[in-house]
């Protein structure tokens, strides 16, 4: 969708008011379709109230136009993540906590992001984390070791 739209600038914000024509739900509905009548009749589901990857890309353009490079990068990662189910997003987050994953597990996670979800920038973030965790001793041990004696305090 973004291909036939010129880069957005500050005057396009807020999109919900100035450029509703560019907005679609992941199910293809427009903002105008999201009426109370449609809600009551059951034509709208939670799926219709999610943000689409295209919309995140548009917001990324606005952020970049305002000089907010990192915010735009965040929207790029977010755009990739829209495809990942809720539970798995949380599981991936937990895998990134310190001492939670081995190098191999993080590498596997990066591949899954890349291969299953085409989430290249997310994968890059995970690979970068894996490198830092290795250097800072924040990877999980390969084999879980059961403590036998009371740890010495």
């Amino acid at each position, binding site marked *: 969708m973004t291909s036939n739209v010129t880069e957005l600038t*500050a005057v396009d*914000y*807020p*999109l*919900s*008011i100035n450029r*509703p024509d560019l*907005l679609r*739900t992941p199910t293809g509905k427009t*903002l105008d379709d*999201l009426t*109370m009548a449609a*809600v*009551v009749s059951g034509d*709208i*589901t*939670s799926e*219709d*109230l*999610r*943000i689409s990857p295209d*919309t*995140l890309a*548009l*917001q990324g353009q606005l*952020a970049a136009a*305002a*000089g*907010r*490079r*990192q*915010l*735009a*990068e*965040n*929207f790029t*990662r*977010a*755009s*990739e*993540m*829209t495809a*990942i189910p*809720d539970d798995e*997003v*949380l599981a*991936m*987050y937990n895998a*990134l*906590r*310190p001492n939670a994953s081995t190098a191999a597990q993080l590498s596997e996670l990066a591949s899954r992001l890349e291969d299953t979800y085409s989430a290249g920038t*997310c994968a890059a*973030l*995970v690979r*970068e*984390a894996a490198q*830092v*965790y290795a250097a*800072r001793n*924040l990877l999980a041990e390969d084999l879980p070791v059961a403590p036998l004696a009371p740890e010495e305090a």
Partner: protein
Amino acid sequence: MTAVAPRPTDSGVRTSKRTEILEARPVNLDGFVEEWPEKGLVAMESDFDPQPSVRVEGGRIVELDGRTRDRFDFMDTFIADHAIDVEACEEAVATPSIEIARMLVDPRTSRADVVALGRGLTPAKILDVVKLMNVVEIMMGIQKTRSRRTPANQAHSTSAKDNPIQVAADAAEGAVRGFAELESTLGVVRYAPLVAIGLQVGGQVGRGGTLTQCALEEATELDLGMRGITAYAETISIYGTESVFVDGDDTPWSKAFLASAYASRGIKMRFTSGTGSEVQMGNAEGRSMLYLEIRCILMAKGAGVQGLQNGSISCIGVPGAVPGGIRAVAAENLVASWMDLECASGNDQSFSHSPMRRTSRLLPQMLPGTDFVCSGYSAVPNKDNMFAGSNLETDDYDDWNVIQRDMQVDGGLRHVREDVILQVRNKAARAMQALFAELDLPVITDEEVEAATYANSSDDYPDRDVLADLDGARSVMERGITGLDLVKALERSGFGEVAENYLKVLRQRVSGDLLQTAAVLTGDFVPLAAINDANDYAGPGTGYRLSGERWEELKKLRHVTSAENPEEEVV
């Protein structure tokens, strides 16, 4: 043996009557300690902080504040690789600190220029700059660098009994008084769904477009957000040293990933940090509180999160006890704003026994204006505040309104007539009653609605059947009830206007407009962010000025003698 007991005085030594009076002043119940810079128990001026430096090789930063890349901890790495603009940094760091400090204060330097220069600065350099600024200059800096033009405020709405009807009524009153965002949390965590529903319903009754959040552990908080029961999230903590960050079971990478997860669901989110947390946990690594907080701010920026709640927050007793501590707290708000982040600027935790000191701690944020002056003004009496009490509470509403009027500053609130307040409180409680009935949740009685209308604290409400409520809360989660179900139920039960407001908030998720820096929703459901309401302060006569209709609104107080007829008060 409570903290409010007066200090023991050595009997036998004669003191003057004046000393007796001074000893009894509330300020002497506060704790003050000497600095210990070697351990990081120092606000912002320490010989143990690093000197600024930066070196770029092959397109990446290889030295940061005196450390070469091989000696980087993970904060250094993340900041060097994500926060700092590599092209601009060497030149930026070479600029004399005094020049930069003056740019922050000088109205002729635009916000854009000073923000652009800031993109290339290292933590030590930023510290070096703000160390040159006194508290008035810091306030000048905040006035200019704050991202949104129009200041706003955020409230806490919680209940000591986790009573969802109380949360709804106080949220409604808070919203009608002007809070743009409402935050809740729980005593009994399992109550969360019902309290989050109360907050949302109350918010939309009080003023359509109010945004709500419920502070919980990450998974539940995200779940409530994804269901559309809450609208944003804030309590995503970050820390300034690697060891404390790891103690908090996170890293900059895990938090950056979480930030993107929220955005991918269309949910607004900001991080939380603040001076004092690292030394409080005993791992400041010998750095000053402000230096470590600047590292947090740059980490947040690097993660691409739109905003940050800072201003010491729950550790305020630590900077509050050392010399220059409250200046440092103002400086951390300045740096967050300068780094182009939305700043929810603290003033949200019980800070002092002294009313005078509570007020002075507030002014560096209230006078220049911030994106959210309080990141939690207690919209319930402090004893009901489940965030352990705030610097401001419901008892202070009138004082706040008078200070706004005295100083002609906009702190985001206004005086509201009693009849209006009673009406929204009643409506919020009735909407909850109807919604609970519609959703088969435990009954809300007419007596409870009546109590909510006139109550002050949780003591004024009949007790709920806690077991039934917890069953209800569980069923909300198990049945997979979403914001959309709540909208439907409100519409069906005759609260169409509330349903409509709620639906409009949910629709924002599709547009993503609230993901932009400092975004809030106006009463007309117009997203107001640092794009369409960018701060344009450029000296006297520019930027946000309290005038016109809004100023007329703020002139109103509970009691103002009429000029026309001095025997009466202005209504």
